[in-house]
């Protein structure tokens, strides 16, 4: 078996990004994935640092142990550019920059602010709209236009809201999710376009929709948009999330074009270690074990959600492949907060691996454990990425750095 330049373990946003960047830099890349990663769960937007108006300056003020401090602003910036190029080539254009936040409308009618936003979700121009239509699609589950309007109204006092009943003849069986509708509408956009045209919305108006405009980039959106005068804006939704899946597909297409060898359903169970170097990883499938050899290994197996970090007993979190020390807060009081939606980070969510500037995992004394192993994405500890809304930014930026080192 040939030795790959880079083995990436994990098929989430960080793993895809690392594989894409490494391939783009001329490396021979093997990507080992198991399960579907967390992209089908995500909103579609890349949050870099949601707690602040200007992420780029706020990143400078982060504490030293924060993953962004190890990654550095330059890499964050390059990662952002690479990501926008990749998605734009895939006809899934993203808008935004590190120095500002763009609002998007959530399925419950709150506003979410994020750095990199799919063009279809950019709600910057909602301010000042005369009339905002919210599409209520008959038979579509999980999208409640009345609730959305009730909550969104408080942000746009000067606009008139109208719930627009749209019938796409979705009924038949039960339980049609946004994902189902997006799939049905792909290459079959006209019924929706016709319904929306009938609203007679003008340039001064906007139409808010659940994210059902196809699953292939922004193709379906363009078909519908050219037939309307008003702006159309997609919201977030409960998983499975079409915007997340569009992004997943954009990456998969890019990796295929770049000759990345993707092995699905490949669960890495341990590493082959020689002299502080990981020379390969052992993959277990239904029948046997197989060794993949690589010069550089990128660990992108995720945090607790994806199983990259696990904890069977209290106060004993582990990284199951390389047994890298996991940093965590001890004791029940520090492990979690009384409030689920708390005004401070959740301890369990800060749990993860600590690294040096090259993203090599380190132990308590800061000693490097494996010279050619780099840790990216949700495996990294030291911050609550959900609380500070940084999961996407850390994923793409750490992946970019690990792939270009």
């Amino acid at each position, binding site marked *: 078996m040939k030795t790959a330049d880079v083995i990436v373990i994990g098929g989430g946003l960080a793993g895809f990004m690392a594989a894409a960047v490494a391939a783009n830099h001329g490396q021979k890349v093997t990507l080992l994935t198991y399960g579907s990663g967390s992209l089908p769960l995500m909103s579609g937007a890349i949050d870099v640092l*949601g707690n602040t108006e200007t992420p780029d300056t706020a990143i400078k*003020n982060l*504490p030293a142990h924060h993953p962004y401090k190890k990654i550095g602003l330059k890499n964050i910036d390059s990662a952002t550019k690479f990501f926008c190029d990749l998605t734009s080539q895939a006809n899934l254009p993203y808008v935004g920059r590190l120095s500002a936040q763009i609002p998007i409308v959530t399925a419950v009618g709150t506003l979410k602010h994020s750095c990199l936003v799919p063009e279809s979700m950019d709600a910057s121009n909602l301010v000042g709209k005369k009339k905002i239509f919210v599409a209520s699609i008959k038979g579509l589950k999980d999208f409640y236009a009345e609730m959305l309007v009730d909550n969104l109204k408080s942000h746009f006092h000067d606009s008139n809201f109208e719930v627009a009943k749209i019938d796409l003849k979705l009924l038949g069986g039960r339980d049609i999710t946004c994902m189902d509708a997006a799939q049905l509408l792909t290459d079959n956009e006209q019924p929706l376009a016709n319904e929306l045209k009938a609203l007679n919305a003008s340039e001064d108006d906007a139409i808010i929709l659940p994210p059902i405009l196809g699953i292939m980039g922004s193709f379906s959106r363009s078909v519908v948009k050219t037939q309307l005068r008003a702006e159309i804006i997609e919201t977030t939704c409960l998983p499975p999330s079409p915007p997340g899946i569009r992004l997943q597909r954009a990456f998969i297409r890019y990796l295929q074009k770049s000759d990345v060898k993707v092995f699905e359903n490949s669960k890495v169970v341990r590493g082959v270690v020689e002299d502080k170097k990981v020379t390969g990883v052992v993959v277990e499938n239904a029948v046997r074990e197989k060794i993949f050899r690589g010069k550089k290994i990128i660990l992108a197996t995720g945090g607790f959600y994806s199983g990259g970090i696990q904890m069977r007993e209290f106060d004993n*979190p*582990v990284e199951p492949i390389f047994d890298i020390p996991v940093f965590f807060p001890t004791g029940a009081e520090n492990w979690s907060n009384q409030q689920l939606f708390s005004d401070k980070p959740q301890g369990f969510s800060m749990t993860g691996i600590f690294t040096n500037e090259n993203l090599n995992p380190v132990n308590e004394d800061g000693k490097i454990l494996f010279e050619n192993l780099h840790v990216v994405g949700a495996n990294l500890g030291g911050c609550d990425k959900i609380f500070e809304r940084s999961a996407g930014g850390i994923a793409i930026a750490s992946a970019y750095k690990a792939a270009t080192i």
Partner: protein
Amino acid sequence: MEKATVVVIGGGATGLGILRDLSMRGVKALLVEKNDLVNGASSRYHGLLHSGGRYAVKDQEAARECIIENQIMRKIGKSCVEPCGGMFTRLDIDDEAYEELWVKGCADSGIEATPITLDEAFKLEPRLSRKHVKSAYLVPDAAVDGFRMAWQLIDSSKRYGGQVKTYTEVIGFDTVNGELRGVKVRNQFTGEEYEIGCDIAVNAAGGWAGFVGKLANVEIGVQPDKGTLIAFNQRIVNHVVNRLHKSSDGDIFVPHGSITILGTSSMSVPDPEDTSTSREEVESLLKIGEETFEDLRDFRILRTFAGSRPLYIPPGGAVGRSASRGFAIVDHEQDGLKGLFTIVGGKFTTYRLMAEKMCNQICAKLNNSTPCRTAEEPLVEEVSQADKDRAKKFFPSYGTNLAATRLGVERFKKVVERLENDPESRELVCECENVTRAEVEEICKDDTSFIVNDVRRRTRIGMGTCQGNFCALRAAAVFADMGVESTAKDSLTRMKEFLQGRWKGIRPVLLGRTIRETEMTRAIYELSMAVRSLEVGVRSYNDTKSTPNSSLLIPNSKTGGESQ
């Protein structure tokens, strides 16, 4: 002024049993509850319909009461009882001499305890520890759904004119010359205070009975005794599995539908409102549970919860596990207050008997000689096969019977009509528990639904595998649309409050796959739905609160790292 002959205070099993019994005897009765129904020990328990085996050595009177009521409950509350049977297993570490006493105690109390071989035991309960289990017996234990029993008690009471007011707290008593005239109450949502006139009031407030007593200046010996339980996401046992030893913590497993409940601990607490649970309590329950089922930690824990048993402490009596599980009725005429009774102690299995004895005394005072019929008449009529067949066209087949027993004849009919007429109402709001939108809509409309949690207790939304991840949004939206109470419109608050309620039980068991579910909850609601508003630009990242404190984080010394 609103009037009733009898006001029942407390919406637990005892109070609801009294409401039903009085209503069936033709007494005009009204029940007030300061929270939602069965919010105390009547739902925060194992859901075990005792055979009496647990009391066969210590308290044979209680054991006999249990086995009799057990048989009655199976008859009148057929759809609330899962007749799974029970097993008592003695482990190698348990006292052999106790086994003999127990066998004799069961025989003396009229409880059929059938010895079985270990082979049979392992066949019936494959996960039992081969290492520790030394002997096993089958007994007629069963699982009982406290929520469903409560709604059926109400439906039955309402048929006979009984009334219920939830979120209505008693704040005082109106007495004239030592005689009760009425009960003063406060609406928990509006704050409105008013009086309900009555001849008799029954304090059936369980762990809160002492507080209610104080309002009337009477002393009541009740000690809230907290028990903590763990709900697992799998059906680990087929039977109720009890440890055959002197009653202790963490020694009973009860299967309920697709989950298993393990409990419980016993701890005296000053406040019945204290339903907190801790990591230590969970750890201790798991440790004991592991003795019977060695692979217990491989099962995902859904949540933990606690409730307070209202133990009756007669003057100078024992507390904790040694306290009697029996009950007491006090006529406060002896304390100079004519018309007030207190009923305290007892256990869920015998609530009907307690209610009967209480109502006998009340009816004697009222010169009402109608006999008690609660042991003969089923709680609810059964939903007809024809209605079930109509429903089966739209319900997931597994859900039809569950919904039928949950909803009862009338509401089930209405739900089926919704399903037939409105195709959109066929979607599932809760996939885990198979709850359709039609059912949630119907319950949201109910005048006892003030918050989404009230809808949860009646429908089981959010009580399954995902603990509200998906249904919180849907339920809040349907509630905002259908709810008749003014509280319904604030959908974001209702949604967050619902998820926070789930979080309370998840926090102490935040390990293993439970963390994963929680990260999903947070990803959906904090990231995709942005329910925690940030007001960008107002809060800076440098707020001390939001800066992660790295000194909190230490490396896990149990892992190797270098030593590959």
